[in-house]
C-alpha cells in the first residue's frame, strides 16, 4: 500500500516477456536467418564450403531434374493431402458440429488421438496395414483376389498416412465453421425441396469456406514438411523435400544446398498460407457480406 514503486505497464510487460523473447531471438530467429543466409551466402565446391554471395544453390535446385522432380512431388503430395482431407473431413465435421453431444465427443477423441501417438508408431502401423503381407492384402486375398497390388512404398501410402494424421487440422476448423451456420438455413432449404447434395453445395460448402481456408493451408504445410512418414511409407523411390534436405545436410554434408532447400520449403509454406489468409480470406468475407 505505502510507498511501493509502481512499474509502468510497458516496463513490466517487457520484464515478463523479455526472457522468452531473448531466448526465441537467439534460438529460433537467428538459426532461421542463418539458414536463409547460408543458402545464398555459401556454396560447396569439391566438398569444401566457399563463402560468397551466390545463386548457385537455387539454380541447382531448379535446374537439376532430380531435385526439380522432388520439389514438384512435394507440392503435388501436399496439395492432394489437403484436398483429400477436405473431402474426408466434411462428413466428420458435419457430424461433429450437428451430432448429439456423445457422438461429437467420440468423433473428436478418435480424431485427435493419432496426434498423441508418435509419428514413427503411426507410420509403422500403416506399413503393417499396407504391406504385401499386411491387413489389406490379407482381406483382399480372403475375398478371392490372388495377388493384390502392394500399396506400401508408393505415393498412395504416404498420402493415406498424411491425411490420417493431419485430418484434425482440417475437421476442427470445418466443424467450427459449420457450427456457426444456423440449422434453420438447412431446414429452410429442406422445406424448399433441396436434396442433401443441394443443401451441401449451396449452404454448407459456401458458408464453411472460412473453415476450409484455415484447414487447407494447414494440411498442405504439415504434409509438405513431413519427414518420417514419407521415409517409412514411401520407400526410397519417391522422396519428398524433407528427405532431400536431410540427405544433403547429414549424409552429403552440403550445408549450403541443404539450407537453400530448407528456405524453399519455408517459402512454399509461407506463400500458401499468405495466399489463403490474404486473398481468399478477403474474397470469402466479401462473398459472405454480399
Amino acid at each position, binding site marked *: 500500500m505505502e510507498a511501493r514503486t509502481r512499474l509502468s505497464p510497458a516496463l513490466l510487460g*517487457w520484464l515478463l516477456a523479455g526472457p522468452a523473447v531473448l*531466448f526465441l531471438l537467439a534460438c*529460433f530467429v537467428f538459426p532461421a536467418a*542463418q539458414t536463409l543466409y547460408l543458402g545464398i551466402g555459401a556454396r560447396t565446391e569439391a566438398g569444401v564450403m566457399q563463402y560468397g554471395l551466390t545463386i548457385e544453390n537455387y539454380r541447382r535446385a531448379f535446374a537439376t531434374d532430380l531435385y526439380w522432380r522432388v520439389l514438384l512431388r512435394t507440392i503435388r503430395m501436399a496439395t492432394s493431402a489437403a484436398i483429400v482431407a477436405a473431402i474426408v473431413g466434411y462428413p466428420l465435421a458435419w457430424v461433429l458440429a450437428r451430432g448429439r453431444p456423445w*457422438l461429437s465427443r467420440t468423433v473428436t477423441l478418435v480424431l485427435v488421438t493419432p496426434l498423441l*501417438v508418435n509419428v*514413427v*508408431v503411426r507410420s509403422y502401423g500403416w506399413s503393417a496395414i499396407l504391406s504385401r503381407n499386411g491387413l489389406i492384402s490379407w482381406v483382399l486375398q480372403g475375398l478371392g483376389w490372388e495377388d493384390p497390388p502392394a500399396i506400401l512404398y508408393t505415393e498412395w501410402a504416404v498420402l493415406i498416412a498424411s491425411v*490420417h494424421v493431419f485430418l484434425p487440422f482440417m475437421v476442427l476448423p470445418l466443424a467450427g465453421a459449420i457450427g456457426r451456420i444456423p440449422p434453420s438455413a438447412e431446414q429452410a432449404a429442406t422445406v424448399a425441396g433441396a436434396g442433401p447434395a443441394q443443401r451441401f453445395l449451396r449452404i454448407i460448402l459456401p458458408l464453411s469456406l472460412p473453415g476450409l481456408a484455415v484447414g487447407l493451408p494447414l494440411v498442405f504445410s504439415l504434409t509438405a514438411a513431413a519427414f518420417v512418414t514419407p521415409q517409412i511409407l514411401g520407400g526410397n523411390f519417391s522422396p519428398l523435400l524433407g528427405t532431400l534436405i536431410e540427405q544433403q545436410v547429414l549424409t552429403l554434408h552440403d550445408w549450403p544446398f541443404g539450407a537453400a532447400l*530448407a528456405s524453399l520449403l519455408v517459402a512454399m509454406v509461407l506463400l500458401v498460407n499468405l495466399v489463403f489468409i490474404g486473398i481468399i480470406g478477403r474474397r470469402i468475407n466479401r462473398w459472405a457480406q454480399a
Partner: protein
Amino acid sequence: MSDRIPWPLGLVTALLLAIIVAPLLVPIAMSISDTPYIVFPPEGFTLEWYVAVLTEPEAQSALLVSLKLAVVSTIGAMALGIPCAMALVRLRFPGRGLVQALVLGPLVVPLIVTGVGLLQTFSLLGLRGAFLQMWIGHMVVCIPYVVRSVSGALATADPTQEDAARVLGAGPVAVFLRVIWPQIRPGVAAGAIFAFIISFDDFAISMWLADARSFPLPLYLYAAIQRFFDPSIAALSALMVFFALGLVLLIEKGLGIGVRRIAS
C-alpha cells in the same frame, strides 16, 4: 441443435473412425504373435516381446533420454512461457504484436527447418552436447503451446478480481498466487502436458542434433524398424499407443480439458 444423423452419413462416419483407429490397433494385435517374425493375422499368444523390448538396454536408455528431455524442456518452456503469456494478456506494451508473432513463430516454420537451422547455428558457435542442444530445440517448439494454453486460461479469468485484491492491499506476489494461479491452473496443466508430449514425441528437431549417447526414443524406434523384423517393435509401438491413450484419458477425464486444443 443436435439433429438425427442420416444413416448413410452415420455409416461413412463409422467407417472413417474405424480407419482412423486401425493403424493404432494393428501394432497391438501383432505384438502378441508368438512367431519370430511379423505376420498378419497374428498367431498364438505371448507377452515375451514385451519382456524382450523392456529389457533391451538400448531401448531403456532411449526411453530415459526422452523422459529427461521432456521434463526439462517442459520446465524450461513453462519458466519462459507463463510470464510471457501474462504480459501478452494483461498488459499493453509497445511491441506486443511483435512479441505475439515471435512466440507463435515456431508453429509456422516447418520443424525440420527449425532443426537444421539449430544444427548450423550450434556448429557455428561451437556449442557441443547433444542433450543440451536438443533441450534448447525442444524448448523453442514447446513455448508456443505453453503460451497459447496459459493465454487462453488468463483471457477467461476475470481481471476485476485481481483489481479487487490489489485494492484490498495484496502485493503482486499475493495477487498471482492467490487470485490468478487458482484460475489459470487448468490452462497451465494443459500447457505442461502438451509441451511434454511435443518434446517426448519429437522427431524433426532431434534427428539433426542427437548423438549415440543421447538418442531419444522416437529415433530409436525409427532405427529399430529398419533393423529388426520381430514383433518386439510392435510391442514397443503398442506400449507407446497405450501411453498416448492414457494421456488422452488424463487430459479429458482427469483435467477436463479438451484434447482438441492441441490441434487448434
